[in-house]
């Protein structure tokens, strides 16, 4: 069967997330970006929606089952409010979802309940490296077996809440394969950069560089245990998450510029009545919808274990990167000079929009 209609349960979740995005995240977004701070209360309220908790089975402290489709639907709605806020609310997922997808039974039992059963606390992951040719399949950070443990060496970048994270997954190159390692707070040899990352956007989010010098990780903390794990399901879950967030940001920019165009007058008519503007809006709506359904299919394929699911997730993500850039750029263009001013949110969405190409591993569903 084909169906483009979310289940009743998903609709309820979407509604709740949408209310939070509109009445909490969005109003806080501007000041959070300018002041470089996200209020903990705001994050907690989003955490209490239980999106992540509902994707973890009861045996590990949650109350549901993982569904990439549900995760994607929720991420779209949340990013409509604010991207930085969404990444903060979804942060513990960076730690729990790979463990759920690729961890051993012991790892799931040990690490998931403390995250899921408590209030929001930063649990993070370190994937990105500071290099123009960063490649998740060819990490420069290395892991080496050493007397029953692993020693990790290298540098990581864009690590969300690294300074306060209770624990994190560090991805490293083990004999040419990308593998995750669970690293608890305060591990010897782990240094968090003193200053936060300075990025074009996501200023509200505390992101740090990491230095790992002979960080010793017990063999039991290698994701997937002795046998390790396939990185593809983890990357694919990240790709559909980012694509969904890109859809949310683009939709925010589209709706804002559409509403502006219906108010703003020039030459005696609303600018939306000019085909030059109206056609831009029509194309924005079309491109958003195109990537949205592509990503839904990718998420559904992941959930149903389809053969080409990983490839499809990659296509959806790659398409989303371009779409988010184009749509947010058009939104700024429609507002003209006003779009360039930070009083309107479209310039921030344009800065967000450029980032999706770099955000590998910053969200996962």
């Amino acid at each position, binding site marked *: *069967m*084909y*169906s*483009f*209609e*979310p*289940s009743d349960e*998903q609709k309820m979740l979407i509604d709740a997330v949408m209310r939070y995005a509109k009445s909490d995240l969005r109003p806080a977004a501007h000041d959070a970006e300018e002041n470089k701070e996200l209020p903990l209360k705001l994050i907690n309220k989003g955490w209490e929606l239980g999106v992540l908790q509902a994707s973890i089975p009861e045996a590990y402290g949650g109350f549901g089952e993982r569904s990439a*489709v549900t995760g994607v639907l929720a991420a779209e709605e949340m990013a409509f409010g604010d991207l930085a806020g969404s990444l903060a609310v979804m942060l513990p997922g960076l730690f729990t979802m790979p463990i759920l997808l690729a961890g051993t039974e012991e790892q799931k039992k040990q690490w998931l309940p403390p995250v899921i059963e408590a209030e929001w606390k930063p649990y993070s992951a370190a994937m990105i490296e500071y290099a*123009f*040719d*960063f*490649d*998740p*399949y060819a990490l420069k950070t290395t892991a080496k077996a050493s007397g029953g443990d692993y020693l990790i060496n290298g540098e990581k970048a864009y690590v969300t809440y690294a300074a306060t994270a209770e624990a994190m997954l560090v991805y490293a190159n083990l004999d040419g394969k990308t593998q995750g390692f669970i690293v608890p707070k305060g591990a010897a040899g782990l240094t968090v950069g003193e200053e936060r990352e300075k990025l074009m956007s996501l200023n509200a989010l505390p992101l740090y560089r990491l230095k790992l010098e002979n960080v010793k990780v017990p063999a039991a903390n290698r994701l997937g245990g002795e046998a390790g794990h396939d990185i*593809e399901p983890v*990357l694919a879950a990240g790709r559909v998450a980012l694509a969904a967030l890109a859809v949310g940001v683009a939709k925010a920019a589209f709706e804002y510029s*559409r509403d502006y*165009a*219906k108010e703003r007058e020039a030459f005696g008519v609303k600018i*939306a*009545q000019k*085909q030059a503007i*109206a*056609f831009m*809006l*029509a*194309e924005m*709506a*079309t*491109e958003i*919808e*195109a*990537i949205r*359904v*592509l990503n*839904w*299919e990718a998420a*559904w*394929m992941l959930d*149903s274990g389809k053969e080409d699911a*990983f*490839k*499809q997730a*990659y*296509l*959806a993500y*790659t*398409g989303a*990167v371009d779409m988010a850039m184009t749509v947010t750029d058009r939104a700024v263009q429609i507002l003209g000079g006003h779009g360039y001013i930070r009083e309107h949110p479209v310039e921030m969405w344009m800065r967000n929009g450029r980032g999706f*190409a770099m955000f*590998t591993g910053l969200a996962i569903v």
Partner: protein
Amino acid sequence: MIEFEAPKPIAQQQFVLKTVAEEMMRAKSRYFDDHEHEIPYDYIEFMHMAMRATGAGSLAPKEKKEEAEDPNKPKRPPIGYQMLAHMLEMLSWGDVGMYLVTPGGGLGAAAVQSAANAEQKAKFLARFGEAKPTFAAMCMTEAGAGSDTSAIRSTAILDKEKNEWVINGEKIFVTAGDKSITLDEKFGKGFVVVWASIDPSAGRAGMRAFVVEAGTPGVSVTKMEHKLGIRCSDTASIVLQDARVPFDHILGSPEVVKDTKGFKGAMATFDATRPLVAATGIGVARAALEFTKEKLAENGVTIRYGLPRQKLTNIEREVIDMEIMLRSAWLMILKAVWMADNAKPNALESSMSKVKAGDAVTKVTQKAVEVMGPLGYSREFLLEKWFRDAKITDIYEGTGQINRLVVARQILGYSGAELR
């Protein structure tokens, strides 16, 4: 529940159609491109037989059969339009020009299906199930009225004494027009649906559709176009000079009410047909993309899905972009027809899918030719033909620009007067 699994009947249908597309269509593609206006009788007769046997076919989905309800059997949602979209996509993957001469009524029958009363449907549609293959076509466009259908100048005046409509005008760009209106002993008696005004002072409110049957005196084909692509499909100019049709050949009410409801009703036909026409373009572009990937593979080029963009070669990027465009356009079509099947208003999704598909298939085929270099441009392969065939997708059944206008009005909540 969001789902993307093709329903079983569709999967089965696709399996059969692929063989037809390969053996009856693809094998003859080059021949009929080289011999414009030649009629592929073998294909037409085969399809007619097959469609009569299976009931599959015309653009207008079959009306629901009244079956005794088995209360134990779970109700399956209708999938008629979804099935058609798949069918058109696969046949066009075979050869879109040839698909366009598939008998069964095409857009002409679709217009009757959506605008006629029960008696008219019985009278006009029964012929498609008879022994000989039969065609019908839509006559909308005129020399001075393309996308702007309100500029149509053809007239239909009621001769009250004889109770007949007298139609005058000249129609152009009529797909399958010749096969529909010219008597041919190999074909059944077809018809064209002619759009004309019954009250030129009333503008769009006076616009009506009329069924004009093959052999009607005063109707003649004056020209067959020579085209960039879809050459197997005849595109005719039809002149109507005092052509008389019985009173009951008018689709819709003969009363002119000063509003545009009748016209909007006519336009609503497009909500159903646009995604289907878009689907034909997808078939062409899929053929081009598959060919390109096969040739690349033969030459040792593999596409490394998953790599960051800056690590990909230009060819890899192009292929990945083509796949994204094509798949997302197809999914938008699926959504639009899924909505049609489930009686959800889909004017927005229908036009959006046409905008996206028009762009996507044009770009995909253009890129494919470029990526293949001298091979792409050569007439030894079909790639250059698919490039020419695909272009029509962004033009007929509403150009990309008209569909942008429809989308824009929908998302802005504007009327035609507010956004012109």
